[in-house]
Each structure stands twice: as structure tokens, then as C-alpha cells.
């Protein structure tokens, strides 16, 4: 069998980078599917594009500037109403730093 394009430990590393929890079964299935997709995408290697500029924007345009004037924005309470948890006018998050009190 050919060397897989992506190994299981790489799948787990990428999942960590992407902050995605995968079960063992999901990770193995992901490896098989990504391996097949990456195997197909390798067809791009047949092209020599070393002298070709990349196209990040299909329609060239200048980055626009807008006038620097204040405009109304969304109401804070409306935004916080969508948060899973909010507290004291802000988003509440799990503890990230231990603080001695």
C-alpha cells in the first residue's frame, strides 16, 4: 500500500490547530477521507507554476477608505443577548488565568 498522504498523528495535530474535538473513530475516518482528497489534489504538482503570480483577488481593486465619521452601531444588549453567557456588560468566558485573591 502506498504511503498515506496524511498520517493519523498529523490529523490529530491539525484538529488541535483547528480547535476541533474528534473521537478516535472520527479521526480515523477523517484520515481516510483527507488522504483520498489530498491524493486527488496532487494532480496540481504536474504544473510548473514557479513563475506564475498567485491570484488572491480575482477582480483587482484598491483597498477603499471610508470617511472617518462616527455612525451608530448595534445596541450592546442586543449583541450580548446572543452570547451563551454574559456578565457585567461583557462576554463571559471560562477562566483563562489563575489569580490569587
Amino acid at each position, binding site marked *: 500500500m502506498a504511503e498515506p498522504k496524511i498520517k493519523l498523528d498529523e490529523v490529530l495535530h*491539525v484538529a488541535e490547530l*483547528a*480547535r*476541533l474535538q474528534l473521537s478516535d473513530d472520527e479521526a480515523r475516518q477523517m484520515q481516510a477521507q*483527507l488522504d483520498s482528497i489530498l491524493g486527488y489534489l496532487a494532480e496540481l504538482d504536474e504544473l510548473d507554476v514557479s513563475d506564475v503570480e498567485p*491570484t488572491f483577488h480575482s477582480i483587482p481593486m484598491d483597498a477603499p477608505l471610508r470617511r472617518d465619521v462616527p455612525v451608530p452601531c448595534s445596541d450592546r444588549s*442586543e449583541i450580548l443577548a446572543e452570547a451563551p453567557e454574559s456578565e457585567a456588560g461583557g462576554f463571559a*468566558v471560562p477562566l483563562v488565568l489563575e489569580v490569587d485573591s
Partner: protein
Amino acid sequence: MTSFPWQSAFEIREQVISGAMTAVDVTRAYLARAEALNPKLSCFLYLDHEGALAAAAQVDRAREVGEPLGPLAGVPVAIKDNLCTRGVRTTCASKILGNYIPPYDAHVVEALRASGAVIVGKTNLDEFAMGSSNENSAFGNVHNPWNLDRAPGGSSGGSACATAAGLAPLALGSDTGGSVRQPGAFCGITAIKPTYGRVSRYGLIAFASSLDQVGPMARSVREASLLLEVIAGHDERDATSADRELGAYHAACGRGVQGLRVGVVRAQLDQLQDPEVRGAVEAALESLEEQGATLVDVALAHAKHAVSVYYLIAPAEASSNLARFDGIRYGLRVSGEDLADTYARTRGQGFGPEVRRRIMLGTYALSAGYYDAFYLRAQRVRTLIRRDYDAAFESCDVLCTPTTPTPAFALGEKTNDPLEMYLADIFTLPPSLAGLPALSTPCGLAADGLPIGLQIVAPPFEEEKLCGAAQVVEDACGLVTSHPPAFA
């Protein structure tokens, strides 16, 4: 149910203006039809009775007091559920946004409201617009109204289905790699992917930012063109929105194709496996020729690489865009041991399999050591694809291809093999990668009754040419009065 009148947006507006029907009556009738048929089709995720009736009442009041009425006064419109609607749940067909209620309207939704349109509800899609069959919705898949066992296409399958089955005369979808054109082709309607930058994406929940566009869907070329006219235009809230003059898209439908040079990629047509798709496309080309167009052979040598290029670039951009769904500011939160664990659980449980797959693929393609080999290489090949079009448009004004290699495939047929699903996007991906406007319109029915779509592609900001050519095809093939038999 008595036979459905299949009124166009123009006819509905005319009736509302003349007073033959009130906007409220029209809205009630459409909501009732949608309630009755949605259990079979699953094209709507949400029907907004209250909001729709209030908007309709406002149109009726404006008429009574003699205020001018907009171009879509009283016309029901369905909105893909990845477009933000103030106060109305917007889910992207994902569990991670299952209860999200946006505090603002997307630009295109504002434009619709200003035109007098009545937003009847939010339509089903592949989760975060990632898919070609609508089977990736977290809330059940849409059915093709022409044959309930077939896929409606994706990712704007709900909008395509609702329009084709007469649950709304008009709908908005979004198109990243074919997501209005492919379901348009599968469901037998017209759909336009505007030039990148033509329509503001403000309030469109981002998938792949170098590709996403909002697009109109309708049962006729003229209605789709009118809807494009309503939603197009500059908006400084979207930094990629083009500050350029609008076209007269609706008027362009009557211009004909006399002297128009229509590019045809012979090799692509000759390689088509499906003889019915090839026959329908050839017939459409003949009808363009009969009306005065000239067919010109062109080559798109690098279009065959579009699947590889797209399935690196779009997932890479998606992996970045979807980082915002972390369980902190909106949507689902699944609490874990610490912050990192909360992110991982929220995203692992909130995203469905295809979205997870694309986030993984995109994160991999952008990660240290692979960026040059995958992402950057894909962006270089994208340049080659774009250059092919530049060269082709030196000898032609528009370019015609099939929209899809086959008519609608069966539900379940491609779900076990993501790659096979991706390969079916081969005709819609190249214009997306080049940022070009492209339109799909019906050009025939297969022997089993399924619609076949013709894709027309034009140079940047030349949507008018798409409208003119598509109208000729619509007039010639006579399918504008064909509707899914089970819903007629």
C-alpha cells in the same frame, strides 16, 4: 388544491398596484402554500408569518396613501438562511448557530425591504453553504420538486426548490463555487452568480471570502435580472463591494444576441458522458446561432484543475472564517475543562461532518510546511485559469458550457464519497475562481423529466450580456411554462 397560477413577480406586483389583490392576500396565499408543501420538500427552515404579513400590510398602506411602490412591491421572496435577517433566526443550517437571531439585516435584505418585497422565510442549505446536494444540512435535506428522490443541488437547494415548486416567485441564494447555479440547474430555474464585488456581502455569513457572492434565483430570466437590479450596487460596509455603475439588467433581456460572439469549449462538450446534457446544450447553442449569434471555439486549458484549486482555496478561507464560531459570542457553547477544551468541544459537536472536513483540509493547507505546496500553488494555478478566460474573451463576448455534467443525481448517491461530490462541480468552479459573472438557465429536460442547465459566463461586470443571451435561450426552449408536475 386548485391549480396554482404560477404568477411572475411582475404579475404579482401589477395586481397589488392595480388593487386586484392586496399584498396581504398574496402573502397569506404563499404562506399557506408553503406550509402545505414544505413537509414534502423541506425547503424552508423557517416561515416568518408575522414579519411577512407586517411587511405586506405596509405595502398595502403605502398604496392606499398614494406613496410610490417599489419594483418588488408585494412580491414574496425566500432568503437563504446564511443571510442575516434582523430579529429572525439565521442558522446556516448548522447546530452551532441553531438559535442565532441577528441584530441586523444583510445589505441585500435591506435592499429587498426597500423595494417593497415581502420576505416570507428562510431557506434550507448545506451547512455553511458547503455542499452540492443539500444533504449537509443539520436540519434535514431538501428534495428536488421534479423528483423527490433526487437532490435539489446545493448549497442554495432550499431557495432553488422553493422557487421551482412555487413556494415563492423569487429567492436569494449565495454562490461560492456554484451554489446558486448548480441547484438552479437541478431544479429548472434561472440563477445568477454576479461578478465578485457586484453585490455587497454585508450580512452574508462568510464561507470563502475571495469567492462568495449573493445571487438571485427565479423561474424566468427577466425576474432573475430584475432581482439582480434590486440587490446590486455599492455598499461601503463590504470592502470588496465594487463602486461601479449598475447595469440595466432587466432591460438587457430584450436586447437579443445579434452579432454576439458565443465561445464554446468543444473539447469539454465532446467529453461529456451524458448525451442528454450534451444534446440540450447543443440545442441551446443552435438557438443562439439562429438568433444571430456566432459560435466561436475557445479553449480553457486549465479549467480541469479547478476542482483541485477550489478545494484548497475555499476550505483554507473557510477554516479562517469559521474560527469565529467558538462558543463565546454567539451560538452553541459546549463547556469543557478550560477555554481550549470549550472551543474544541463546541466546534467538534456544533459543526457537521462536511464542515469539519473542510476546516481540517483548509487548516492543513495553510499550516506550517504545507502553505507553499498547497495553498500558494493553488493560488498560482488560479492565475492560469483566469488568464485562460482573458484570452477567450478576446475572441468571444460570452462563453457557454453545461452547468452540471448530469441532471440531478439521486439523494444518497454521492454522500459516502466527498471527492466524487466535489468533481460534479467542474463547470461552475472555473468562473468562480476567476471572479466572473455566470448564469444558469434551463435549456432542456432529460427523458426522465429532470431539468438540464446551460451556464453562460461573461467578462467582469458584464452581467447584461448574460441576461440578453439567457433570454434568447429561454424563448427558444420554451421551458419557462414547465413546472414540476407534482406541484402544478
